[in-house]
C-alpha cells in the first residue's frame, strides 16, 4: 500500500468517525482486518494496548495500524490522515459557524447518525467478543475459561468501575493461569 493510499484510507476513517474515538473501530476493522492487512487477534491486542496507554484510542489505533502496514513512517502517515479531517473541519467551523452544533439541520442529521453509530460500535464489539470468547476454528463454541473470565471481570466492573488499565492487567495475569 502506498503512503498516499494509506493517507486516504485513514483520512476517510477520520472523516466518518462521528461521535468519538470508539466510532472509528468499525471503520478501522473493515479497512485493516477485512482488508487483510492485520489479523483479528492482533486487532484486539492493539485495542487493548490503545486502551491502556496515554492518548485518544482512535489515534493510538491509527498509529498502530499504520505501523503494522508500513513501518514507522506508516504510523505517522496514518495518524496524519486520521486528524486531517478534524483540522480542516474544525478550523472552518471555528472561523465561520460557531453555532454549528445547535443548528437544527445538524441536530437532525446527528439524531440519525448517533444511534446508528452505536449499532456500528456494537458490530465491532461483536467481532471482538467472538474472537475473545469462542474457540478458534469453531463457529460458536464458547471457550469455558474465557467465558468464566468474562463473567468474573464483568461482575468486577459492574461492582467497581475503574480505569481500563486495571481490567486489562487483570485479564493478562489471569489469562496466564487460565489458558
Amino acid at each position: 500500500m502506498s503512503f498516499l493510499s494509506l493517507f486516504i484510507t485513514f483520512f476517510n476513517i477520520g472523516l466518518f468517525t462521528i461521535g468519538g474515538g470508539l466510532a472509528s473501530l468499525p471503520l478501522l476493522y473493515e479497512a485493516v482486518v477485512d482488508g487483510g492487512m492485520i489479523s483479528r487477534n492482533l486487532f484486539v491486542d492493539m485495542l487493548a494496548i490503545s486502551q491502556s496507554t496515554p492518548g485518544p484510542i482512535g489515534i493510538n489505533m491509527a498509529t498502530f495500524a499504520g505501523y503494522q502496514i508500513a513501518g514507522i513512517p506508516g504510523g505517522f502517515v496514518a495518524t496524519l490522515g486520521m486528524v486531517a479531517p478534524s483540522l480542516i473541519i474544525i478550523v472552518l467551523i471555528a472561523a465561520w459557524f460557531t453555532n454549528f452544533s445547535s443548528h437544527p439541520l445538524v441536530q437532525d442529521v446527528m439524531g440519525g447518525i448517533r444511534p446508528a453509530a452505536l449499532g456500528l460500535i456494537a458490530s465491532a464489539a461483536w467481532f471482538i467478543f467472538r474472537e475473545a470468547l469462542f474457540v478458534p476454528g469453531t463457529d460458536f463454541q464458547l471457550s469455558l475459561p474465557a467465558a468464566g473470565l468474562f463473567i468474573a471481570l464483568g461482575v468486577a466492573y459492574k461492582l467497581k468501575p475503574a480505569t481500563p488499565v486495571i481490567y486489562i492487567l487483570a485479564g493478562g495475569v489471569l489469562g496466564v493461569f487460565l489458558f
Partner: protein
Amino acid sequence: MVLYSLFFKIGLFSIGGGYVMLPMLRLELVEKRKWVNDRELLDYYAIGQATPGIIAVNTATFVGYTRRGIPGAVAATAGMVSPSLIIILAIAVFIPMMESLPLFQKAFKGIRVAVAVLLVSTLVSLTKKGWKTWVDGLLTLAGFSAVVFFGASPFPVILAAGFLGLLLRRHRSVVQ
C-alpha cells in the same frame, strides 16, 4: 509552543479515551489558565461530538484555533497526538516478539476477554445515555444488523443514517 506542550501533557495523561479528557481540559483551560469558561468548553466539546473526528482532537483543534489561529490549531493537534505516536511506536516494535512467546500468548488471550468486557460495558452505558425514543433503538439495531448480518461497510451506513435523521425529524414536525 505553549499550546503544543499543554496538549502534549493532556494527551499524555488521558488514558482510556476521550471521556477521561474533559475533567483534565477543565482544570487546565478553565481553572488554571482562564482561557475559556465552562460554557465555552462544553460548546467546544459539543461541536467535537457533532463533527467528524476524534472528540479529543477536535476539542484541541478548536481551542488552538481560538487562541492562535491556524498555527495554533496545528500546534494543539500535534501536541495532542505526539504522546500516542511516541508511545505506540515504541510498543509496536516489540509486539511481534511478544506474540511469539507462549506466556504472552496466554496473557493476550485473557486481555482480549478484558477488552470484550470493557467494550460491552461502555456500549451499555452509551446506550443508556443515547437512546431517547424507540426509533433510536431501531436505528442502532439496523446499524448493527447491516454490518454483522449483511456484511455492509460502515461508511454507507453512516451516510444513510444521517439522511434518515433528516427525514425522520421532518416527518415528526409535520405530525406535530
